């Protein structure tokens, strides 16, 4: 069994260089190590200036997404043993501007996420005295899958449409819009459809399907978008067929 492994890491230090470069580090190989462990080893022992985001180490926080050998991965779930004999190439998430080393700029995604109103919208809140909004397990099942999104943005790094058209709202934000549309306690589907069927919304998607493959939580953003297109087309057809009626 090999005792070390080479890790080729993209570096971008804006105070030193105009363009990113690659730096190779030799790290110990352990069977139970993930790429994030190797990065932490570099940070602690080899080069303290290496910058990257991480937090929970268990696929919940969605902070440590990076490109591992060209594929968007959570580095806390990408085992070194899956990439033997190396070297392993680690780059910041594709299609996002790089702030420093492996850290990317997130505000574009956060703005889009807010735009689709991912929260429960009520036309009228019922008084507290009437109790909680109830939901059956079957009703929860309709949206549960989409609620697993951890905003890690691997789906954006997998989506060539987002790379080519950065204004595209993108897979995670649309999947999260669907999460609330399909919630029986929500009444904001019409509002969200208007936002999501704008030029930068669902119709930009060409169904490459890579977002679903990249998702570490089993959400199916590609499916969510195609199903949303069907809803959008039906709503348009209804409004065209019954222009006097309500949608």
């Amino acid at each position, binding site marked *: 069994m090999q005792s070390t492994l080479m890790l080729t890491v993209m570096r971008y230090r*804006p105070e030193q260089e*105009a363009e990113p470069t690659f730096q190779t580090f030799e790290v110990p190989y352990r069977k139970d190590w993930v790429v994030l462990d190797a990065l932490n080893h570099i940070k602690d022992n080899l080069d303290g200036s290496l910058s990257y985001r991480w937090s929970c180490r268990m696929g919940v926080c969605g902070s440590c997404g990076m490109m591992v050998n060209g594929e968007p991965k959570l580095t806390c779930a990408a085992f070194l043993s899956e990439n033997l004999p190396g070297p392993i190439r680690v780059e910041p998430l594709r299609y996002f501007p790089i702030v*420093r080393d492996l850290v990317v*700029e997130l505000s574009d995604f956060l703005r889009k996420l807010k735009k689709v109103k991912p929260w429960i919208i009520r036309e009228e809140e019922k008084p507290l005295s009437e109790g909680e909004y109830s939901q059956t397990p079957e009703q929860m099942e309709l949206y549960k899958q989409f609620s697993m999104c951890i905003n890690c943005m691997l789906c954006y790094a997998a989506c060539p449409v987002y790379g080519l058209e950065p204004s595209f709202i993108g897979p995670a934000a649309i999947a999260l819009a669907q999460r609330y549309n399909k919630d029986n306690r929500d009444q904001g589907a019409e509002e969200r459809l208007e936002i999501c069927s704008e030029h930068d919304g669902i119709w930009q998607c*060409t169904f490459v399907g*890579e977002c679903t493959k990249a998702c570490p939580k089993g959400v199916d953003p590609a*499916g969510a978008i*195609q199903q949303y297109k*069907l809803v959008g087309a039906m709503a348009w057809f209804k409004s065209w067929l019954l222009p006097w009626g309500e949608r």
Partner: protein
Amino acid sequence: MNASAQYTLYHPKWYRRHVSVWWWLKTWSYTKFVLRELTSVSVAYFAVVALWQVRSLACCAEAYTRFLRLMESPFFLAINLIALIFVLFHALTWFHLAPRAMVFRLGSRRLPDKLVVGMNYIAWIVLSALIAWIMLRG
């Protein structure tokens, strides 16, 4: 310090990567996607051929014979065979994507993906058999 860096303290200078025109050749899944999209040209080609056939049929017997002769030529046989392979690739990839775009529920249960794909295949076989029966019965 590199002179072109133009970095000022506390002012981030993002690096934006350029997406190459050849992005779709970088991974096989991207290439497969572009192939699926490009094969739609073959679908359009067959639609044009069908319109051409109807036009020659509507014109006169000579025109229709001319059309048939042309379609029997090695050039059109080769083109049609290639277009048929592309159309099959196009149709089959869409069959397999159908369950993602359309969710069918039976009560509270979602129909399994294989069943939705299977329904597409069955519809295809039934329609093909129907057309073959109409064409070949007399």
